[in-house]
């Protein structure tokens, strides 16, 4: 037995023990390499990583269940992607953030994929008795909004500016959140008197909040845009997801959750009955996209009207009416009847 072996035996480091410790070290090395390998972006067959605006939390996983989703304020996601977050697709609640990111080369050319409506929500108990946006100017009312860097926060300020209410409403703002879902949960849990969110958010907690609409003429153009992230290693799968959202089935899912279709519906008049009537009489219009009609005129004279359904309007011929074409107007445009009606005495 050599002196070395004697030394080893005395210290307990038998050949078997040494082999074992060498094996442990080798296993650790393999493990560490595998772990660091796993940290590299993978070509994933299972699903891609989608960074999407918080208001898309319910809809997107229904469109494509297999993906990994990260929902937050669109500007938060922008900051994360700019700092290297591993997103394959980015979907924002506005068009300006994607446009800026496209200019910086962070994403491909963005495409609009849905629209939404800004609304006011109040807790079910409505402690401050809010029934319109003007009630929010009362002193002591607490308003919760998202901060101006978040799309919904900027839309809110757009509405306030449009209505000239900014200086009246700002003093009542108690907090500026980082995403729309935080605003919603603060109102749903009755922490504040009113909040500004999307109509789609309000629909997720119908028993906890009441919706108060924003006047149609002050409604901002809320358009969502999305794009594939340029650094994504799953370009094909990412583009496939974008196409899926834009497809008929994807758009149907968005509508189911309350989002508006991409093309803003303009009214269309199919028929006018009767074509001859007198002042005070009623005329029935049939057509499409009549919901949301803001005015009906006969030869420029405004008539009282009732929207019976999205396909039917009943109007009353006003006292000063003249014969002429009927015009139906909504926030997206108008329709003029082909046939003119004749007003007798």
């Amino acid at each position: 037995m050599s002196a070395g072996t004697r030394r080893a035996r005395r210290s307990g480091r038998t050949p078997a023990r040494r082999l074992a410790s060498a094996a442990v070290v080798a296993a650790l090395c393999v493990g560490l390499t595998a772990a660091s390998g796993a940290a590299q972006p993978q070509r994933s067959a299972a699903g891609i990583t989608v960074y999407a605006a918080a208001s898309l939390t319910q809809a997107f996983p229904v469109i494509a269940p297999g993906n990994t989703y990260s929902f937050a304020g669109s500007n938060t996601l922008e900051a994360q992607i700019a700092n290297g977050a591993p997103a394959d697709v980015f979907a924002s609640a506005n068009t300006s953030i994607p446009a800026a990111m496209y200019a910086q080369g962070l994403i491909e050319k963005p495409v609009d994929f849905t629209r939404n409506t800004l609304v006011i929500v109040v807790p079910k108990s409505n402690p401050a008795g809010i029934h319109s946006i003007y009630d929010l100017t009362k002193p002591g009312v607490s308003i919760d909004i998202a901060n101006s860097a978040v799309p919904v926060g900027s839309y809110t300020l757009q509405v306030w500016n449009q209505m000239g209410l900014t200086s009246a409403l700002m003093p009542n703002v108690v907090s500026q959140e980082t995403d729309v879902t935080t605003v919603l949960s603060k109102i749903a849990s009755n922490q504040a008197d009113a909040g500004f969110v999307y109509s789609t958010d309000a629909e997720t907690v119908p028993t906890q909040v009441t919706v108060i609409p924003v006047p149609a003429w002050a409604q901002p153009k809320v358009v969502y845009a999305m794009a594939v992230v340029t650094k994504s290693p799953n370009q094909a799968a990412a583009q496939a997801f974008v196409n899926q959202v834009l497809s008929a089935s994807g758009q149907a899912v968005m509508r189911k959750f309350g989002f508006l279709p991409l093309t803003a519906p303009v009214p269309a008049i199919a028929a006018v009955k009767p074509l001859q009537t007198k002042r005070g009489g009623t005329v029935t219009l049939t057509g499409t996209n009549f919901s949301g009609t803001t005015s009906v005129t006969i030869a420029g004279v405004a008539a009282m009207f009732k929207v019976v359904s999205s396909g039917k309007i009943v109007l009353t011929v006003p006292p000063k009416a003249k014969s002429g074409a009927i015009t139906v107007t909504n926030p997206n445009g108008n329709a003029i009847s082909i046939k003119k009606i004749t007003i007798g005495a």
Partner: protein
Amino acid sequence: MVATTPPAAVPRRASPTARMLLTLGFFLLVLTTLAFIALPIVAIFVHVAPSTLLHELTNPLVLDALVVSAKTTLISQALILVFGTATAYFLASRRFRGRSLAITLIELPIVLPPAAAGLGLLVAFGRVGLLGSTFDALGINVAFNQAAVVLAVTFVAGPFYVRQGIAAFESVDETMVAASRTLGAGPLRTFSRVTVPLAAGGLAAGQAIAMARGLGEFGATIMFAGSLQGRTQTLPLAVYYAFELPNGLDVALAISAILTLVSLAILLTAKVISGSYLFRRGTGRNPTVALD
């Protein structure tokens, strides 16, 4: 022929190579640890030019956050001093059934995740919380204003002071206290002229840690008080907000630089105070002041 003694049981010494490798290994470990801690802190100051950092200090976002942080920190530190000292002294000097339970309860916010703490404060003192209707009736509005920030900061930072205070009071030499009483000083005079000065080193260190913790509080504040520039947006909340603004990285870095420097100042002050008190006054039996 020389009689060779068989290799006796000499203490087995590692070969020089092994010893060198071991020393090198330790050296690398320590170096890695120091580098890991130092890199993020240094990066805050060197990622953008110092002139940019200084320029951002004039940003209203930064100034508003400074004011909010300063005000709320001062008020909460005053509350912590008053309530914390009394509590620490009581717990240090009395033995009663449930004492360890009380101490564990006081220490709980130290380990409680701040978001959970914020939520707890919300459902206790918020509008629809346990005490919400009582506060409403009394006309007190706690939510979404600086009172909420003060409450959140006091909740998470106070226990640091109380824990340190208990240790400080316990280390006061009882013979000094007894001597003071036998010499005719009343309990209040003994407390203020003998006990507190003897415990002052530990108390000051505790206050420093509580201040540093309170200054950095984020989770509980954003949950309970919300975030509004000029009212409830403290420095840490402002970092978060600024980072998410377009081109907001510079502002976020400037605020982080301020926070780093202030924290460093607090830490150094704490070390100086506790060190000087140890040398000058002596705290009696166990002069160990842990800055943990």
